């Protein structure tokens, strides 16, 4: 499988709808302090189902919705869509026929949240199950947040066991 495209709208500092296409190999993200690089990586962590606001540097999940600047009012909806292509593994019905899948997640300021696969509402569990079917289930290993690289070194032996278990 391969990441093809990410669409971010109203998520953290991404006020306007932003679309980014990924290539094979290495995609570099650069820019000055505070411009939104880690927000971009938080968007990927979020659309893949992250449930803890703390892992997104917030206190409540609503902290991910664009909350305004000097010249722009807060929004009431955050939406991120991740399109995945080149799917090698056999997927369960009804997804067997698709060559591309788009996972979406929405959060309204009311607290209501939605998950979608190819624009059809689904449950978080459906997204998680599909990710495991595609071999990307161990997302704990796939995303290393800023400043967290040596957590495995300072972890306790039992915490280290959990990390190794996910990977093995």
């Amino acid at each position, binding site marked *: *499988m*391969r*990441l093809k495209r990410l669409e971010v709208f109203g998520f*953290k*500092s*991404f*006020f*306007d709808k*932003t*679309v*980014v*296409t*990924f*290539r*094979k*190999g*290495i*995609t*570099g*993200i*650069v*820019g000055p302090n505070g*411009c*939104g*690089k*880690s*927000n*971009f*990586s938080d968007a*990927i*962590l979020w659309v893949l189902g992250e449930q803890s606001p703390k892992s997104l540097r917030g206190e409540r999940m609503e902290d991910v919705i664009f909350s305004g*600047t*000097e*010249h*722009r009012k807060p929004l009431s909806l955050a939406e991120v869509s991740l399109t995945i292509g080149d799917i090698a593994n056999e997927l369960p019905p009804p997804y067997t026929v698709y060559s591309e899948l788009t996972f979406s997640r929405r959060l309204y300021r009311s607290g209501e949240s939605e998950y979608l696969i190819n624009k059809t509402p689904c449950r978080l569990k459906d997204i998680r199950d599909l990710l495991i079917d*595609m*071999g*990307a289930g*161990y997302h704990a*290993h*796939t*995303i*290393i*947040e*800023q*400043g967290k*690289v*040596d957590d*495995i*070194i*300072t972890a*306790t*032996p*039992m915490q*280290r*066991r959990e990390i*190794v*278990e996910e*990977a*093995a």
Partner: protein
Amino acid sequence: TRGLFVETFHTLNQKFGEVYASFFGGGSAELVLLDEAHPLESGIEMLAQPPGKGKRNILLLSGGEKALTAISLLFATFLIHPTPFCLLDEIDAPLDEENTRRFAQTLESMSDQTQFIVVTHNKLTMEIADILYGVTMEETGISKLVSVNLKKELDESEGNPAETI
């Protein structure tokens, strides 16, 4: 699944040692089961010894050595259990120039099996990117992505906008 765990643990250890030695130009690293009799419940210790240095507690390692040791383990897990994509946010920040080069080279060699998204401030890491996006705040507080031509970026200049609708 006990047999499976022990077998995978053993393979992970082997790869961990190999990647570590390629990063540090020698030395050794391994994971140790604290309670060999109960592998499925045992805590896991980590030992790492840079080449020529004495054996000591991993907490005494330097900031850069700790980061490189952690990256060795991460890459070792990818060698056993290839993951389709991986996102790294300024993982190269503690590394000096020599270690950043080694990290970048290894990342490049793994990028045909894993798709990497790498956030970095380091020019040596930028150079190995197949495509580079710059995140800007032309309007304060509003992030936009522009795709950047690497050659121009290193000469500190602008890029053309990505599809910002």
